[in-house]
């Protein structure tokens, strides 16, 4: 293994081991979206049918891909938040003086967080029949590929903020005030098709809308009639790839410039 590969691998591995030993994190990042899904999905099923929602599915099913997205988002937040304290008075101090490039550090962290989010996402994927979605092998494969992409983007965004901000409180504040609305307006909660024009514009400009579309298309691979009006597959994947790449670039840049220590 090359020196850089070993460095990436070891930082990836650290994320995995830490996660395994922090059961509350595993449960927290999984159970909270699950509760959302159960309460909102089943709660709204009878009474709530947003306009633009494809016919033939109920709200539980509509909301399900959105909840997967939320699982990925929460796990990414949990995975990256430790960076805030870690680089100033914890483990990352040692990494910062080691002979390792900052973008290598970010790569290891992001891949670790992506793996964790993907794991949580896959556990959630098992619940698809509860939503009334019966996944083909191809659909599972495509969904995992899309989840990987989005999980990676979320982790890079998390790192981008964690390498810059000085307190975990600030980190939470930013993540909640930026990422949750982005999630909310990605088509996770209601389809763009039924929204007023100004809101539809915001949703079209939201990169996550295309990630959401890619995930929906993957879950319903082979049965496009259940999708309703969504951005096309090629556009969705292309924009998601660009989104993840941009997030990675920014995360590496912020980490590069981070002085690690406050005055």
């Amino acid at each position, binding site marked *: 293994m090359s*020196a850089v590969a*070993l460095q990436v691998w*070891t930082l990836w591995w650290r994320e995995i081991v830490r996660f395994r030993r922090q059961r509350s994190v595993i449960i927290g990042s999984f159970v909270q979206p699950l509760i959302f899904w159960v309460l909102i999905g089943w709660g709204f099923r009878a009474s709530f049918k947003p306009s633009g929602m494809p016919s033939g599915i109920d709200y539980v099913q509509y909301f399900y891909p959105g909840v997967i997205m939320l699982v990925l988002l929460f796990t990414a937040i949990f995975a990256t938040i430790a960076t805030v304290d870690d680089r100033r008075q914890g*483990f990352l101090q040692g990494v910062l003086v080691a002979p390792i490039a900052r973008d290598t550090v970010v790569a290891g962290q992001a891949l670790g967080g992506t793996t964790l989010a993907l794991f949580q996402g896959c556990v959630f994927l098992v619940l698809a029949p509860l939503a009334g979605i019966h996944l083909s092998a191809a659909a599972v494969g495509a969904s995992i590929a899309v989840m990987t992409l989005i999980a990676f983007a979320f982790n890079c965004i998390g790192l981008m903020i964690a390498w810059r901000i000085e307190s975990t409180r600030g980190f939470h504040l930013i993540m909640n005030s930026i990422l949750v609305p982005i999630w909310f307006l990605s088509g996770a909660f209601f389809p763009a098709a039924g929204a007023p024009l100004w809101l539809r514009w915001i949703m079209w400009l939201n990169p996550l809308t295309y990630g959401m579309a890619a995930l929906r298309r993957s879950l319903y691979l082979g049965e496009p009639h259940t999708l309703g009006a969504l951005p096309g597959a090629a556009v969705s994947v292309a924009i998601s790839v660009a989104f993840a790449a941009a997030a990675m670039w920014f995360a590496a840049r912020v980490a590069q410039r981070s002085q690690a220590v406050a*005055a």
Partner: protein
Amino acid sequence: MNTSPATGAAPAGRAGQRSAEPVIEVGGLGFSYGGRQALSGIAFTIARGEIFGFLGPNGGGKSTLFRLLSTLVPMQSGNARILGYDLRGATRALRRRIGVVFQSPSLDGKLTVAENLAIHGHLYGLGGARLRERTHAMLARLDVDDRAGDLAETLSGGLRRRVELAKALLHEPELLLLDEPSTGLDPAARREFFNLLTLLRESAGVTIVLTTHYMEEAERCGRIGILDQGRLVAIAPPGELKGQVGGDVMVISGPAPEMLAQKIARQFQVRAVLVDGTLRIERPRGHELVARLVDEFGGEIDSVAFGRPTLEDVFVHLTGHRFVAGPREKNGR
């Protein structure tokens, strides 16, 4: 990056030659956070095999100096060479050759001791059998090998410090930098930790540079540099510094110190300096003066402390104010 001259085991002749060149060479070093000058005009050299301590109160600039030397923050002004590498240049190759122990723990509490060392080894390019061998050797040397499988967070403060040290030494650095290494240790553990450092210098041949605000720790360094308000006010072996203080030191407290100082000056032609509300007199054969002072001004004196000069006295002698270890921390370091 040109690595050819530095790679491979140094031949015997070369080792001798290298030991003559200083490990750290710093001149005109300055650093500021925004508008606040944290260091200015710092110059010193440290030779191979030294145990060098930077002593100073919090806010004196120790931590900033440590961050510069450990390549954690970029250079702003002045020049610095460590092990022949210019700190202004690429530091990757240098980092491989220094070990760093931070004031706050850098162990991951959720990982075992062995796992912490393994990650550290991987970051420094150690792997496989070599890593296992080094891990075992370091944990054994620091006498923590029986805790290798325990989560780092379950270790006591003293043991954790040892593991930090094992980790920093894993990649066989030539220079070990420690920032306030004994923070949070009780005096006994502190002494023990220092004994360990002394031992390591002898057995592993590393040069040790540390920062401290503990007098008794500074006392045990081969040489110390005293930092105050961002300036290096003295560099010398502790004994020599104490010799600079004129003989014995008397500290006199009383209700009216200023008036007393004038009276002492008139009566004995001795200069008593007012430092933070107490009078200080530095003088050889001080015990004779103490007796006469008490005879003459007994009513105006609450207490007299008398003793051989300590490093604290040296600090007061050099800076004109007392050594404040704690409360300045808030204003940043």
